């Protein structure tokens, strides 16, 4: 499967899960998009991730994720089949960033797209040393607990934005 | 036909009546005999048959069920073909006997199950020559064991579609249990009856005059409830319906 196919599938799957995808020409434009998405809000940023490096000066950062309007992260891999983002934890990549603020923005170069959910599990299993854990997230938080009606944004973020960029892999 | 049963019509079949029919529901086996004879099949009634044993098994008495399973096998073993108007009883032969019996007896049960037909299966397989006509609007209830244990959903519908003038109006949840459930119906009668009400309500919504099924036990339960609630719909066993629809012409010798 080509990167373009993976991208198309990812965007369709993410949309089906009520997430929003943005496709940018390059890393610089992707970072511009992240800045725009964060607008005037306070931000908690995963500074330990290479794909978000360089963003910290352009965002209104706060220390405590509970005070942030937006959490900005990179991902380990993103799954085309399901629209899933896989994020492992470690120094500079905290559990709270994609979870506690009401909006999650993820930066994903196309090189991180994998075809299937099984590929993402494999990617997690291959991490050496293994992380203390990982979160797989597919779209905004939801619940069907009241009369089985879908409600968005129950505990986790109510919005998930994924900013993708070719990073030179496709033209 | 890739269901493992014979592809040529047996000339003689043994009729397996089922205890519910013997006790309170003579219509379906009688209709079955009429239809099979119209197809040119000779029907025998093995006198030694009683019950398949399912009531005991499902009440927690497998030993007693095994006694009757052995009787059933002894009664029907010498026949090349068995036909019944109770899908549920046939499912006992198919599924429960191999669990109750061992060794040669189990093999015998499996072999006999493979040459047993539920009524609609037999008529769908071999009754293409029948001329059937009946002006009626019916809805069909899939009995649980016929649908899920025998995996038989298509034969009754195929058979109904062969009746000129008949319209099948599918009800919502046609495959949902009517609430009979054997001794469940008397152990937890309120739940059983509430389930019958759900089924009758779905059947009623179709506007059909008749609720048709291939299991006398479901129909006994549903009709019993319909009589009390004065639900407008009437129940009819599919063999009776097909018998009603028989246009008696000279069928092949």
């Amino acid at each position, binding site marked *: 499967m080509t990167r373009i196919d993976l991208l198309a599938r990812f965007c369709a799957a993410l949309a089906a899960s009520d997430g929003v995808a943005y496709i940018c020409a390059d890393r610089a434009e992707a970072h511009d998009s992240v800045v725009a998405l964060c607008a005037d809000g306070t931000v908690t940023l995963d500074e330990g991730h290479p794909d978000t490096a360089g963003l910290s000066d352009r965002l209104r950062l706060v220390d405590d994720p509970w005070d942030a309007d937006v959490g900005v992260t990179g991902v380990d891999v993103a799954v085309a089949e*399901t629209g*899933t983002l896989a994020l492992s*934890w470690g120094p500079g990549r*905290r559990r709270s960033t994609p*979870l*506690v603020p009401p909006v999650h923005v993820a930066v994903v170069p196309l090189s991180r797209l994998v075809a299937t*959910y*099984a590929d993402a*599990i494999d990617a*997690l299993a291959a991490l050496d040393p*293994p*992380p*203390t*854990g990982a*979160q797989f997230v597919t779209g*905004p*938080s939801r619940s*069907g*607990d*009241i*009369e089985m009606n879908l*409600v968005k*944004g*129950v505990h*986790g973020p109510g919005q998930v934005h994924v900013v993708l960029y070719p990073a030179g892999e496709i033209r | 036909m890739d269901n493992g049963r014979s592809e040529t019509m047996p000339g003689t079949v043994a009729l397996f*009546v089922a205890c*519910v029919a*013997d*006790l309170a529901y*003579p219509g379906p086996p009688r209709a079955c005999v009429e239809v099979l004879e119209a197809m040119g099949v000779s029907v025998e009634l093995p006198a030694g048959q*009683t*019950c398949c044993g399912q009531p*005991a*098994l*499902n*009440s927690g*008495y497998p030993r*007693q069920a095994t*006694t*009757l399973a052995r009787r059933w096998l002894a009664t029907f073993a010498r026949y090349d073909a068995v036909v019944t108007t109770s899908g549920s009883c046939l499912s006992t032969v198919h599924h429960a006997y191999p669990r109750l019996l061992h060794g040669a007896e189990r093999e015998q049960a499996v072999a006999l199950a493979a040459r047993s037909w539920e009524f609609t299966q037999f008529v769908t397989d071999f009754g293409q020559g029948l001329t059937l006509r009946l002006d009626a609007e019916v809805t069909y209830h899939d009995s*649980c*064991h016929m649908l*899920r244990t025998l995996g038989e959903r298509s034969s009754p519908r195929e058979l109904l579609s062969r009746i000129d003038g008949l319209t099948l109006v599918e009800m919502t*949840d046609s495959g*949902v*249990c009517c609430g009979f*459930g054997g*001794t*469940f119906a*008397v*152990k*937890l*009668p*309120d739940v*059983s009856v*509430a*389930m019958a009400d759900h089924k009758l309500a779905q059947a009623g919504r179709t506007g059909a005059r008749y609720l048709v099924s291939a299991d006398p036990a479901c129909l*006994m339960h549903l009709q*019993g409830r319909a009589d*009390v609630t004065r639900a407008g719909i009437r129940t009819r066993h599919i063999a009776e319906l097909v018998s009603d629809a028989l246009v008696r012409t000279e069928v092949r010798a």
Partner: protein
Amino acid sequence: MPDAAEVPTPESSPPTPPRRRSTALLGRERVVVTRPDWAAATIPAHRKPLPIITRAALDQPGTAATHTRLSGKNREQNDGGWPPEIAALRERGAEIRRETLRDLEGHLAALTAKAEANGVVVHRAATPDDAVGIITGIARANDVRLVVKSKSMATEEMHLNAHLEENGIEVVETDLGEYIVQVADERPSHIVGPALHKSKAEVGALFEELAAERLPQEAEDLAAFARTRLRADFHHADMGISGVNFAAADTGTLTLVTNEGNADMVTSQPRIHVAVMPMEKVIPRLRDLAVLVPLLCYAATKQKVTVYQTMLNGPRRDGEPDGPEQLHLVILDNGRSSIVEGRYREVLACIRCGNCQIACPVYRTVGGHAYGSVYGGPIGAVLTPLLANTKQGRDLPFLSSLCGACFDACPVKIPLPDMLVDLRADYEAATRGRPRRWLWRLWAKAWDSPRGYRLTMTAARLAGPLLPRAVLRRLPGPGRGWAAGRALPATRDAGAFRAWFTDRRPR
């Protein structure tokens, strides 16, 4: 309640945060409990007989509406069977679960070794009481006052919330459905949808009582109310308690599958995390998640995957900015090590999707509480009698019409209908001296002979007119149950078919 000052605090602990009461449960005392006793969070010690409970359940005002909702859900989830790609996962999932059960202790030993190497403290609890002791011990040792909890059916088996509260520890359920039933002092009525039995209006009224003010009544509004209240508790709780969906033996990874994100909160925000799993939740390999997670999600909610899968290897390491300092894993037995040795082993293949409950027409008709047990529906009717701490509920296998829908709905192909039949036999064998047993023996003897069978038919033919419905309703025996709400079958026709057949023969 122990004096907090006497409890030694581990040196690694940060300064104890200010004592907080739960925000989510504020006003709980205002809620007037209206549920019947058999729906209570703590199951009464003496359960009424099933016919009584189920009758009462049928009379509950919301039962019919629940039936309608669940029937719609069942049509959506189970009409048309398994699509081919999921059917393939079902075959593989069924095999993975059986592979697990063939060497359950071996997999648990591997899991334990791996988890301990990852810094997890592993506890084995033979009984629910043992588990309660372990968990309250962890709470005391760490001066825990407020616990946030994400869904765990295993903790329901031990009535953990009540025990923690007795110890002065406040516990807040954070799954929206669990929060609803907690506020209503009920227990979950469904494995994955704890409040499936409640209408939006009921939830709205409940939250208004809790808040002592008018609230907007759309599902979004009610969820937002719960979200706001629960967020404060996530932020300030001392300890998180969660269940586990899958525990991978090869890596020690604990996986939780949710949609709301509450499990992520519970496992990441408090300084201590206790994960509770019944022993069968172990799976051989992390890679098996690629099969089991999509299978679970499809069976439970028809999603490809839920919004969140939380995979936990251990507590936070040096240099990590957040996460719990302690991660405990409590592995509950409660009779499972006996189950796995016996003929009902496969019931432990269950991955708790709740689809057999949705698929069960009896469950849809009476609701989950009417089973009077922690687990309702077909899986509950099989599992409950087998658990070690079951004092009542061994008769649950009879609360089924044996329609077989649960087997078709099971993502790991547990032969629930056969097990229900076999458990009925176990129940009857264990209740010695019942007249029922003699009646069945007599029945088998009579119907093992054509003459006895004919005699029954004659008796039925004669008894029919003698016992009209009005009389039968008052007599003991099966006729009474039948006559409750149904016209009697026409037993005057007993034997009529055979007479007809014989008479026409010479024709």
